[in-house]
């Protein structure tokens, strides 16, 4: 599904990613954890194609295609989805119209006819129920005046509508209250299929109680410094990052 090989990336001339390797197979759920500023969102942005990030080395294959050669929109239409850590507010653009445009652009890319109004509405209803989001939010401008939790829920709703092959969820759990976390996590679980892969970026074990990952990776200073199974997350929760990062910083100083 996704194969990241030795990715180095700069932003404003500063190297943030320093050789990332990661393989995600269809249906797998991977979690990436790591201290603030370690490069988790940068990795997500590089995969989504954000233009400020310059990839200086390495390659990424997505379903066999050279991902880095594709435009932002083509990556999305190939089935890559990024749920943003900080979803932007876009006053004046209605959420529903925007989602309809996005769904139909993807269909067009796949050579399908646009959805008619009735089918679109039916799909909306179904997915709204799945992530428990109300009509009133969707008739407003994109994220405008949404609470932090509403913004995150809207991201997962869009994921449900766009049915991606690979979803990257950047701290979708942060800012959610306990009930919202459960609802969002349940939504994500309902979206798990044998061929849809998920990359979860999170700071908290709590999300991983709901969404059990197949693998857990620790990103530190632009590198994946440890990988393991879901037990690694429990260990991190208990001990913090020090037990990993200390030995790395020491060996760097030698």
């Amino acid at each position, binding site marked *: 599904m996704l194969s990241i090989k030795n990715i180095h990336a700069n932003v404003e001339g500063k190297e943030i990613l320093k050789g990332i390797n990661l393989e995600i197979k269809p249906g797998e759920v991977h979690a990436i954890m790591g201290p603030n500023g370690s490069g988790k969102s940068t990795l997500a942005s590089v995969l989504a194609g*954000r233009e400020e990030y310059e990839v200086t080395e390495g390659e990424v294959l997505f379903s066999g295609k050279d991902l880095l050669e594709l*435009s932002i*929109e083509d990556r*999305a239409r190939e089935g890559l989805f990024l749920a943003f850590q900080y*979803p932007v507010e*876009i006053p004046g*653009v209605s959420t529903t119209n925007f989602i309809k*445009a996005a769904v139909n*652009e*993807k269909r067009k890319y796949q050579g399908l006819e646009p959805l008619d109004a009735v089918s679109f509405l039916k799909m909306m209803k179904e997915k709204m129920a799945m992530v428990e989001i109300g009509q009133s939010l969707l008739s407003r401008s994109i994220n405008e005046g949404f609470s932090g939790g509403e913004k995150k829920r809207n991201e997962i709703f869009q994921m449900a509508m766009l049915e991606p092959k690979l979803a990257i969820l950047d701290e979708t759990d942060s800012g959610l209250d306990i009930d919202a976390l459960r609802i969002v996590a349940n939504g994500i679980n309902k979206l798990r299929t044998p061929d849809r892969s998920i990359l979860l970026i999170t700071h908290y074990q709590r999300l991983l109680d709901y969404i059990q990952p197949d693998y857990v990776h620790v990103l530190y200073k632009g590198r994946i410094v440890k990988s393991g199974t879901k037990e690694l997350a429990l260990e991190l929760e208990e001990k913090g990052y020090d037990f990993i990062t200390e030995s790395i910083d020491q060996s760097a100083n030698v």
Partner: protein
Amino acid sequence: MTNVNYFKDQFSALQTSDPNELLTGIRKENFDTFSRSGLPTLRQEEWKYTNISSLFDKDYEFAADQEISPYLLSSLEEIRINGHQNANELVFLNGRYSPSLSAVRSPESQLVVLPLEEAIDSKYKALVAMHLGQSSSYIKDGIHALNTSFIHGGLFLYIPKGQQLLHPVYIYHLSDAGQQHTLSQPRSLIYVEAQAKFQLAETYKTLGTCESFTNEVMEIVVEADAFVEYYKIQNDGPNAHQTNTTHIRQMEKSHVHTVVLSLNGGMVRNNLNLVMDARGNETHLYGLSLLRGKTHVDNHTMIDNKMPDCYSNQLYKSVADDASTSIFSGRIIVQPDAQKTNAYQSSKNILLSEQASINAKPQLEIFADDVKCSHGCTVGQLDEEALYYLRARGIPKEKAEVLLLHAFAADIVDQIKLEPLQKYTEKLIYEHLTVS
């Protein structure tokens, strides 16, 4: 400008053929002004960015009276604002009001529509004499004087006291530049009596491929407690140039709401003057220019607060793409007597191309102390974060840009309170943005 002699001859001919006493006097005074000052040049502060005298390297002429042809009627059909069966539709052909092309659908008890010359011969004579030409004391330049020098075939509208005119007035300006470079000079005077409510929209169309220059003056008097909505839609060809002045005088506790929408066109200058001649008025001015190609749109607003307790709010937005030019100059005067004036002004602009240019200039002249005034101006690009977000959902860059431009325009379009007109402009904007 080259054809001074042409205007001299035309002026003498008009004074002879239409020797109306009131009009000949006003014309004479203004033709003297025109002869003295000529057309505005870039050296004049108010015309710094808009070189209309450069247009007059071509010889513009007034069009002769024309038969109503199927061609004219079908062109008229193209700019008709549909969706309001009982709208009053008034037509100016080559700058002269054409009763035969027009359809007045409201009863005379609600709306009086007269050719200006007839109004002068009627019981409205005193009103016309008092208000016609008031704008000349605010705008003293040659192009405004040129319109006033040739007042002929004008329009007079009167909305009687307390009439809540249910059906709007639409004014369509047709200019035929099929055979020659055509100068059209529409002139109108509108008197809205106390407590009346009136909605007006104007739009323009040039026929043919020669150059057309519309030089329009409209004066509106809004009596106490009256309410006026005024809309101007400019979406004409690149050969269609225009200078117009809308001069509005507000009496006590009246309310004025205007929206000027500019899409396609050549060189366009819009003067919008508001004179607060009594206390307690409320005024909202909105503008939206979505420009590309070489279109040049210069919006000048002026609010003269002469009396206390007036509130005004202005929001002008523009987007300039290709080699287009957008100008906003907003002048607010607060006279010594105009205490408790609240005057706000904001101009928001998006520059989409390196060849395009945007100029925005507030001018506050405040001579009273107890006032609240503010102005703000921004020039930026489309929001990169928002573009990225939309593209990350699979929406191609060009479409994402169009979505954001629509969003930028939306709060001005919302200010068009006349529903069929709002639909009409939404469609125009949609077509305008998707063509590119």
